[in-house]
């Protein structure tokens, strides 16, 4: 047969379905951004392009408070989770296995295996009692909760990198009488740095995006960006909500694009 040119890559229907999938993914987000640019007061009446709702959001004190809380929270929780995850990954990936390694891995991944709403309720029960007993209602509760569920996310890329790492450099350093800590600082850490950064970014975004934990554990009047959005959804959809959503969308695009460019350059 002449047309016996075989290419299983060209699966019939895959192309159109894939394009449909991308269109479906992007239309709602595009509509959201367009709506945020509406100059009019009313959401459903189009009155031309304007950035007034972005300006309104940036002058809105409760939005700015929520943004500040989110930033503090994502940064501290991200740092705590990354530091703990790095140490734990060093413990579980070096030369030989040790007794209890399976248990350690199971515990480290445990927060991923339980539905978020269940963990949120569980912490709510405990934190409510601590709040009552101590009267302290600060951000620490959220920082603790976020650090907990961010650990597995930071752990994954760091562990993956360590597993693929060549140990001969470390051994060489040790043979040349470098101390354990010196070897870590001068050899392991620089090799591990990109993975630690990736782990931190992952933890940061996961914390920044979190709705359920924050909504259940926050103290009254203490909003993060997502809980602020959720609170306003209950009342009414305004163009300001769209502007805030579009800003969050922009942040994720920036984070993804920058990490994409970073990895591309390295290749």
């Amino acid at each position: 047969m002449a047309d016996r040119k075989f290419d299983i890559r060209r699966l019939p229907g895959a192309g159109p379905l894939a394009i449909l999938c991308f269109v479906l993914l992007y239309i709602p987000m595009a509509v959201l951004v367009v709506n945020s640019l509406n100059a009019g007061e009313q959401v459903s009446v189009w009155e031309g392009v304007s950035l007034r709702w972005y300006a309104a959001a940036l002058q809105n004190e409760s939005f700015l408070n929520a943004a500040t809380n989110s930033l503090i929270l994502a940064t501290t929780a991200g740092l705590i989770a990354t530091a703990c995850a790095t140490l734990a990954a060093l413990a579980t990936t070096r030369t030989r296995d040790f007794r209890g390694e399976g248990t350690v891995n199971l515990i480290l991944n445990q927060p991923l295996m339980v539905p978020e709403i269940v963990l949120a309720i569980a912490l709510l029960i405990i934190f409510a009692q601590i709040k009552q007993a101590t009267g302290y209602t600060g951000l620490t509760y959220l920082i603790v909760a976020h650090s907990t569920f961010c650990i597995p996310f930071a752990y994954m890329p760091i562990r993956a990198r360590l597993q693929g790492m060549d140990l001969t450099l470390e051994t060489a350093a040790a043979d040349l009488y470098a101390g354990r800590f010196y070897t870590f600082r001068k050899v392991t850490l620089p090799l591990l740095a990109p993975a630690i950064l990736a782990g931190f970014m992952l933890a940061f975004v996961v914390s920044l995006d979190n709705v359920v934990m924050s909504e259940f554990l926050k103290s009254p009047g203490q909003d993060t960006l997502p809980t602020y959005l959720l609170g306003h959804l209950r009342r009414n959809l305004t163009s300001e909500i769209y502007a805030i959503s579009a800003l969050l969308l922009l942040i994720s695009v920036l984070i993804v694009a920058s990490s994409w460019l970073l990895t591309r350059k390295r290749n």
Partner: protein
Amino acid sequence: MAMRGETHARRADARRRWGLALPALAIIVLFSILPLGVVAVYSFLTPGDYGNVKWIPSLQGWFQVLFERDIFDDTVSLSGAHLTILGRSVGLSLVTTLITLVLGVPTAWFIATRPLRQRAVWLLLITIPFWTNLLVRTIAVQEMIRSDGLVNRLLIGLGLIEAPIQMMFTNFAVLLGMAYVFLPLMVLPVYAAIERFDFGQAEAAYDLYASRPYCFRRVVLPQVKSGIIAGSILVFVPSLGAYVTPRIMGGGKTMMLGNLIEMQFGQGRNWPLGAALSLTLTVLVLLALVWYTRLTTRESNNG
């Protein structure tokens, strides 16, 4: 002597490594595992008058997960509301998984078969929604299907319908929202599996006169199956425990398990029931995970 030194060194090494893992372990044990234990204890207590619990042992919480007692004649019957919500949670999660499979697998295939340079761009296009806040994405879908949203206005403009269709606050809305939000979770692992597949094998099979469907079924599918299973689990598990999307898209009308649990700790003021429901949800999720692990370990044993 040497043996003894060896075990000694081994023990010291294990001690040091437990020490390194300690901060992470302590945080997770204190703020995840221990609180879950408290939930387990609470599920066996008596509801307090204004929420919280009384420290009187009781099986009421677990009993009420599936049954209800008539307050007048004390007869026991299956709890219709809870069963409906349980069924809806499992049902909608399964259908969500199915929809994301139908759309996600061809998309992953499409991306994996592009030339290397293009692939990165298509992947980026899948990753952006993945990294975008769940709430923002849910708001975006809501914007499409609310009464004066784009879909209704388009349909009216085309003369297909007279009045806007009520799509929000229905099972359909919850389904649409979840499928939209969880789609990237299907595409990414399936893509990873297809990308690893060596297409030379398919060509070899074809040279040996395997038909295209046969080749697909016997050569391609077994090797990408693990990715498809992983994607399905990654979609099914968060769907089952979904709270935000059903709350926004379904309102109070089409609750799922997550919303029912929250209600028991809020207006419902029945903490033991809430705790028992939480554990029920956790067990369902764990069953799915166990099934997944067994399936994949069998897979790797065979391969």
